């Protein structure tokens, strides 16, 4: 790599450079001014992420950098904006949390920024080495933020469990990658695709593919690699759980799409059957296991497992409609999930205690009708009831699956979403028809803003969804 190509590479990866340098500066500010600077560092982190988002939008050029290890195109920019938006909202949610739980330290926003940097690098990865390193950067930061409340046994347990299982999945991913490298001699995605043909793929390569997919399925918490999800969601502090539910899933989905649509494109039949299986298993488990949950964070964890299953339907379809359906699904799911977590963060009693049971929502329609209305809309949307946003998300991925002749998958998906309706509607019933036992304190301004916006999004999707759909379609066109 000569000096000119290096400078061109640095220019192409300008958003990541700004984010990395910004994270180091924020760390310095925090270290030198101590824990009283949490508010400043959080505010500056939000500004930094917004600035990086602007760079992605306005300075985005297509191309590859660092000898093919990094790539940028419409798909990459779409996913990066989604991940950045998820991180920004999660940081904003943490502001109010800090006010009521003074235990937050300045490292928290810094680690969130570094995790976001890892996600952006993951989304841009065009080589299995950069994929692995950026995945580790993101995961390591997430393990720490899961355990950030180190005086709470639950939070520590969540962090430890996430770390041990995450390390195991990284091992599987690396083993798979070493097999893929051994049987193709290449690490770049397009070079791997060039070295593969559908007829002459070796058995070792299929083993590699299975291990790689297993490692990534862990990151998106798809069945049978979902065991960590409910415990980590329940144990981690709620703003951290909100963060986990959106941005990291977007980044992991992006690398899954990159892998199957670029690197393993020639062996579509091999990965398609794996994805169909984990998709069906995730949808079914997400629908059935959530029924008995009484803790709303655990319920959201099972709901996220199910939703990842629906998103995988689009990837398994393996066509352009499928990819654009997945992108749309991830965008809509992120909005719904962050909105729901804003409502969960607002579940705080008058004495400042946070509650997490589904029964605690009883009679919310009398005590806080606006929040009850928004949460009802979000639950209807998560269940996929028209004309809310969640219905269109499911509609597009199922249409893509039907087009790819995966009729069984589409039918099973629709059936499991019917089963899933039960527990979403149960929450609605608790809010509107049960008697109130207690009253929540008034939600903080930023929580009201976030759940208000997400409520408006799901109800007004018919009006505002056009440009989003067009952007997702343009992004999916980078592969075909």
């Amino acid at each position: 790599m000569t000096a000119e190509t290096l400078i061109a590479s640095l220019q192409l990866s300008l958003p990541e450079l700004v984010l990395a340098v910004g994270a180091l500066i924020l760390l310095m500010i925090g270290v030198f001014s101590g824990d009283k600077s949490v508010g400043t560092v959080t505010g500056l982190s939000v500004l930094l992420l917004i600035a990086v988002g602007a760079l992605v939008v306005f300075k985005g050029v297509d191309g590859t950098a660092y000898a093919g290890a990094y790539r940028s195109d419409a798909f990459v920019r779409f996913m990066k904006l989604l991940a950045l938006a998820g991180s920004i909202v999660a940081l904003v949610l943490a502001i109010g949390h800090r006010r009521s739980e003074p235990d937050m330290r300045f490292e928290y926003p810094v680690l969130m920024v570094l995790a976001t940097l890892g996600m952006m690098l993951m989304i841009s990865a065009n080589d299995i080495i950069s994929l692995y390193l950026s995945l580790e950067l993101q995961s390591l930061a997430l393990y720490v933020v899961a355990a950030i409340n180190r005086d709470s046994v639950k939070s520590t347990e969540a962090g430890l469990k996430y770390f041990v299982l995450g390390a195991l999945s990284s091992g599987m991913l690396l083993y798979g990658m070493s097999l893929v490298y051994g049987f193709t001699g290449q690490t770049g995605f397009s070079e791997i695709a060039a070295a593969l043909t559908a007829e002459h793929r070796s058995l070792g390569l299929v083993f590699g593919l299975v291990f790689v997919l297993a490692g990534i399925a862990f990151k998106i918490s798809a069945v049978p690699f979902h065991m960590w999800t409910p415990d980590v969601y329940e144990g981690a502090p709620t703003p951290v759980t909100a963060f986990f539910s959106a941005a990291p899933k977007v980044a992991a989905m992006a690398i899954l799409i990159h892998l199957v649509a670029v690197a393993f494109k020639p062996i579509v039949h091999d990965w398609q059957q794996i994805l169909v299986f984990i998709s069906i298993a995730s949808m079914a488990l997400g629908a059935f296991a959530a029924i008995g949950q009484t803790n709303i964070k655990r319920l959201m964890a099972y709901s996220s497992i199910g939703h990842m299953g629906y998103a995988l339907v689009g990837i398994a379809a393996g066509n352009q409609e499928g990819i654009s359906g997945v992108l749309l699904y991830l965008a809509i799911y992120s909005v719904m999930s962050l909105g729901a977590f804003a409502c969960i963060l607002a579940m705080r009693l008058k004495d400042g205690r946070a509650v997490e049971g589904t029964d605690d929502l009883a009679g919310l329609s009398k005590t806080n009708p606006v929040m009850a209305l928004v949460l009802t809309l979000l639950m209807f949307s998560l269940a996929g009831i028209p004309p809310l946003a969640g219905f269109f998300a499911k509609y597009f991925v199922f249409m893509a699956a039907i087009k790819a002749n995966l009729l069984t998958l589409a039918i099973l998906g629709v059936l499991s979403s019917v089963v899933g309706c039960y527990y979403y509607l149960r929450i609605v019933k608790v809010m509107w028809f049960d008697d109130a036992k207690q009253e929540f304190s008034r939600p903080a301004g930023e929580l009201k803003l976030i759940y208000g916006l997400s409520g408006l999004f799901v109800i007004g999707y018919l009006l505002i969804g056009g440009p989003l759909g067009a952007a997702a379609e343009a992004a999916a066109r980078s592969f075909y």
Partner: protein
Amino acid sequence: MGLQALFFYLFAFIAIASAFMVISARNPVHSVLFLILTFFNAAGLFLLTGAEFLAMILLVVYVGAVAVLFLFVVMMLDVDFAALRTKALEYAPVGALIGIILALELIFVIGGSTISPEIAKKAAVPIPALTERSNTQALGDVLYTHYVYFFQIAGLVLLVAMIGAIVLTLKHRTNVKRQNISAQVARTPETAVSIVKVKPGQGI
């Protein structure tokens, strides 16, 4: 060739003998020291095959970091090694069986494996011949140029690990006495010494 063979047998013999001593030494500190000896001899074997970079990394990482960490753990944690050893003897036959199976598998895999010439041709960054460029030079050629991106991300991963370790373990205790050098230097006889008249026959 004769000298090389002599050194090979020397290193190999000491490596196996000291590996045996690792598990049979009575004192756990001796075990760790024998482990270090094993690493040194393995590094010697790497040197003989021309992999000098791997040899040095083995010394730096395993002897410099991992073995020293082991030593710390052995010395600082109060583990009853005598009790562990009597248990370990019970499992010796099973361990020996697994060891034999592993050895056979290694012999089959290494004896039967070949590098497919097509794949060797397609290698992402081919290794230059040893006569042209040594290992360390060949790695240095690509590590800071072709792979500078990976190198930098690895640096960020280490930074996150460091922040994480500090966040999760550092506790600022308030009730411990710390050295305050400026306060010590600013002491004068007036502030530090007080003269007390003690009457004879009485204590203070």
